[in-house]
């Protein structure tokens, strides 16, 4: 068949398809009824025309025009659904805690990497107070002392609410930034995540140890107990997500390293979704609850204990009954 005949015969078909594609490419553009039903078959015919045109060495102009339509049609036909907001609730109720349980090996490793160095240095500093300066600078130490010195707290004076908003902004940008870096640096064969987890654990333990020596225990622990539940757990989970990336590169199993990384990332990024939500909650508690000086320490300990129970209970139990949770599908590093 000559190109002229070919074009004359089939042009109306691909012109219709082009109109449909243009309609779909508009934001919010939609096809309805018959048009929608016939889109896929029209697209397949277009692919056929494109292949024919190439095979018969029709002019490159025609081949390119059909090729362009094929690309655009493919983009529309294989557009992945993005049910992000619809699935949001089910993710919070079941998806996220299930995922955390499924990836428990990474979670435990990250938890150990955060808390073990922290506890070790805490005990060490109780025994040798000067060791705090190996972890932080004297300036930082004195600023922490000032922050938690009970003498600096005028009892019964709540912070101004606009200061709370300022601190909320600071906690959001600082804490979520830290957890993003803890996660992302895991792609360096896990080294980055391990570094951030251990470093934050050491810093935490050192400050806690030093303030215990300085007898500021009550102000310090009553401050951190509330938001610590969400914040520390979230840091552990983001570290675990990072470790998963690193482990996928180190031990890819039967697939290539790149493929293994891709598969691990698809799971790890879902952990990060949950981490973001948890850290926003943590920042909220830290800015508006933990800093409140009107409350008695025992009230804060009580609520803090409740929040810890809530976080752990949520991660351990939530989503178990819904449509039978399968036993852990994948084994992490053992």
């Amino acid at each position, binding site marked *: 068949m000559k190109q002229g005949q070919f074009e004359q015969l089939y042009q109306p078909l691909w012109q219709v398809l082009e109109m449909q594609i243009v309609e779909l490419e508009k934001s919010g553009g939609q096809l309805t009824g018959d048009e929608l039903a016939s889109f896929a078959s029209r697209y397949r015919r277009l*692919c056929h025309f494109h292949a024919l045109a190439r095979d018969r060495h029709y*002019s490159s102009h025609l081949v*390119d025009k059909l090729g362009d339509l094929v690309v655009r049609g493919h983009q529309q036909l294989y557009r992945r659904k993005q049910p992000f907001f619809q699935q949001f609730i089910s993710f919070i109720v079941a998806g996220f805690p299930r995922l955390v349980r499924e990836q428990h090996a990474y979670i435990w490793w990250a938890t150990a990497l955060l808390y073990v160095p922290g506890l070790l240095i805490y005990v060490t500093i109780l025994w040798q107070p000067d060791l705090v300066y190996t972890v932080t600078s004297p300036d930082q130490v004195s600023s922490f002392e000032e922050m938690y010195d009970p003498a600096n707290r005028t009892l019964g004076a709540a912070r101004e609410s606009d200061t709370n908003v300022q601190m*909320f*902004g600071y906690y959001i*940008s600082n804490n979520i930034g830290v957890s993003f870096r803890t996660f992302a640096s895991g792609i360096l064969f896990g080294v980055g995540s391990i570094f951030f987890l251990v470093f934050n654990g050491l810093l935490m333990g050192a400050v806690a140890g030093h303030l215990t020596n300085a007898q500021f225990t009550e102000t310090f622990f009553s401050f951190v107990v509330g938001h610590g539940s969400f914040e520390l757990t979230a840091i552990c989970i983001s570290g675990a997500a990072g470790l998963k990336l690193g482990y996928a590169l180190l031990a890819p199993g039967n697939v290539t390293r790149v493929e293994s990384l891709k598969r691990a990332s698809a799971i790890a*990024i879902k952990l990060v979704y949950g981490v973001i939500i948890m850290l926003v909650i943590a920042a909220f508690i830290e800015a508006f609850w933990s800093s409140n000086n009107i409350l008695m320490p025992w009230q804060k300990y009580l609520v803090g204990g409740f929040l810890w129970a809530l976080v752990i209970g949520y991660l351990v139990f939530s989503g178990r009954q819904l449509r039978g949770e399968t036993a852990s599908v994948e084994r992490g590093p053992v």
Partner: protein
Amino acid sequence: MLLDTRQSLETPEGALLPLTPAGFGVRALAQILDILIRFGITTVIFIVLSLLGRMGIGLALILTFLLEWFYPVFFEIARNGRTPGKKWMGIRVVNDDGTPITFGPSLLRNLLRVVDFLPMAYLTGIVASLCNRQFKRLGDLAAGSMVIYDAPPLAEPSFAVRGQLPVPAGFSTDEQRALLAFAERSNYLSAERQSELATILQPVIHAKDPVIAIKQMANTMVGKQ
């Protein structure tokens, strides 16, 4: 053989999608543009919101945090893979099966940006992108995404020559493309260079004036008189 980075991706229909991955040069320019835009917005945010005192600072911190981490994610999702800088440079992000980028991969590749940046100026990302054929930095490798050139819109061609001449049978699609490219680019070539190039084909096409003959063949191909 054509010396370019174009790659074909086979779809379930057996069609070959031509995709041209974008290298780090053009992506760096896009990134610089995005950084400038972000810097501009950040400055405006801080100037305006600092008028509101501490509460304003808090809001500004949240907004700049969102801007730092989610600016690319937002545009890649809402604008079909194009941040303003990428749009300017004519490139965009797609999943590596050629479909539009989705939320998860976009967030992933933009979080891993901090690692690609290490130790400075995206050195890790540049090295990684030179090690594979799709110019993927680490974030792209993990997310299964790639940056491609937007196909330029097919322009209505005009070759300043009237009349048609049939293309000799046996010219492959690529060879036809070369004829067409010659006709399209002839505006940028001197008359002498045009005839020098066209004369190479003289043994095959046996025309009186090969330049005009090739342009007339180009007319035939695009269906112009």
